């Protein structure tokens, strides 16, 4: 695969909600994202940012249009195939970390690898390395309840990276954090992106942070403009 072929390609991707009146949450979106790019998505609340992330993340299905990931049409896949792709190719960081409260940071990072069927030893090696990477080597055996918001979000980032996904999706990953911690998380994402050459797509309200991205996608009322 050459650098020119996109990892993600949207062709007239549309999501419509039908609550009495028709509501176009995403309207004919066309977009090509290449390997290793850092993409920032900005736009007012309710403009369809999360909807776009859920579609690309295979958590939701489009009403019409085509979505290609790694050149494959993913819109018509079964739950098993989509689950498999989420596990191997995609990594997620959401506004809420949704860490499993009864598991340690280390175990939480191991979880995607265990879901992939990897052995505990292998999963542990990878998870330890990633937790060091996000600066939590001293907190591996702590549970989410014993960690701060910023620390938990860093655990969530390590978890998103554990299966070495081609694409990492962040939907307002710094939304629940104070500005200073948010900036730190954002710097961390940028550094990991440069280090591993993975594609990052991050929704943010912070224009200052967005300006540092390779591509800025602006969403207004479900319509995309690329800058």
């Amino acid at each position: 695969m050459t650098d020119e072929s996109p990892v993600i390609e949207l062709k007239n991707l549309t999501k419509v909600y039908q609550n009495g009146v028709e509501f176009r949450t995403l309207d004919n979106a066309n977009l090509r994202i290449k390997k290793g790019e850092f993409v920032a998505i900005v736009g007012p609340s309710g403009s369809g940012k999360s909807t776009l992330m859920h579609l690309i993340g295979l958590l939701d299905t489009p009403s019409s249009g085509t979505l290609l990931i790694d050149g494959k049409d993913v819109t018509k896949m079964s739950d098993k195939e989509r689950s498999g792709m989420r596990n191997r190719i995609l990594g997620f960081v959401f506004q809420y970390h949704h860490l499993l409260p009864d598991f340690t940071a280390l175990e939480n990072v191991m979880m995607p690898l265990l879901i992939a069927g990897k052995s505990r030893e292998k999963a542990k090696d990878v998870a330890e390395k990633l937790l060091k990477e996000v600066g939590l080597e001293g907190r591996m055996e702590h549970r989410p309840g014993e960690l701060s918001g910023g620390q938990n979000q860093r655990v969530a980032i390590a978890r998103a990276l554990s299966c070495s996904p081609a694409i990492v999706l962040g939907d307002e990953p710094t939304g629940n954090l104070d500005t200073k911690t948010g900036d730190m998380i954002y710097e961390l994402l940028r550094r990991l992106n440069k280090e591993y050459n993975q594609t990052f797509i991050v929704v943010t309200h912070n224009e200052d942070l967005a300006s540092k991205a390779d591509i800025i996608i602006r969403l207004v009322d479900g319509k995309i403009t690329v800058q």
Partner: protein
Amino acid sequence: MRYELLIALRQLRARKFQTLLSVGAIALAVMILTVSHSLLLGVTGEIYNITVDKLPHVSVSPEEGEDYIYLYGTLVGRIGSIEGVTAVSPFLTGQASFRFKDNSLNCELRGVVPSQENEISSIEEDMVEGSFQEIEFSRNTVVIGSKLAEKLEVNPGDSVDVSFPNANLLSLRVVGIFHTGSPLDEVLAYTSLGTAREFYDASNAVNGVSVRLRDFNRDTEVANEIKKLGYNAKGWTETDPAILRFIAIESTSNAVIYGLIVVIASFGVVSTLNLSVISAKGQIGMLRAMGAQVSGIQRIFILQSGILGLLGALFGTFAGVLIALAIGQYEIPADPSDVYGSISFIPIVVRFQDIVFIIFAVFLLNLITGVYPARQAAKLDPVKAISSK
């Protein structure tokens, strides 16, 4: 370890109180079930021992189309050599009309060899007057049931006239009275084989053979072996199915009642798990995002329900067996007038295969009831689940 089991176990451990409560409720229900089942098995076992003990375990009758069994001496020998047969008693029986003074009654007059018949029906234990063996020693004598004696108003030493169409009129002296407490007391009289032959005019033949077995559960098997010899034979389960029916009804109603208690206890688990599905929405959505399939999410909850059921079943049967065995140690004050006077302990039977079955059935039941919360979890839209806090 699969991630589903890992998560299931961890969640159960995290919800210690609810887990303890669920396991406790199931264990209590299973314990009651185990104790009542052991008691039922013990009591029905005693009922078998008391009632079946006095029945012929296998009854042999003549071949199809024949009235009599000739050369019965050979047959008795061949049946006696069948593995598990402990006694064989040939008899010649039929209807007879008994008359004493103005009283007249019809009943069964059965000619037997007393020593052999006693091994089948233990009638000597039931003699209230006279001796059963006497019919063998003195000609033209009879032993009759207590109700029959009462109705005819006869006492030992009295002679009764016995007649029947196509039979020879005889005068028989009453030498004994038995009392079994069963309807037989009104309808049965014993005499010797020789006297019966004279009465029914059947020289050197019998019309039935009673067989006793070491293990009365083998009745059908032995009956089938005797059939191979060319005779008609039936086990007690075929001739007296009422006993089996009674025990079957008892066992079924018992199983239904205590089974329901276990089901109710298992439904407690469903509501606990439903709550945990609601409180773990975000985590379930995240697991889906990490690549867990719908089936994987379902397994997490079915496993939790199954594990709770299995733990409850293990603790419940363990406690139940201990309690049942303790009850079995309890001595009942003896009361010889009672029918159950011979039992001095509460009868308890703990059957290993039944315990294994209970554990397995409760585990299975909980796997099934776990399907409902599992469905609830699987139905969650991952997008909405993730957006929830």
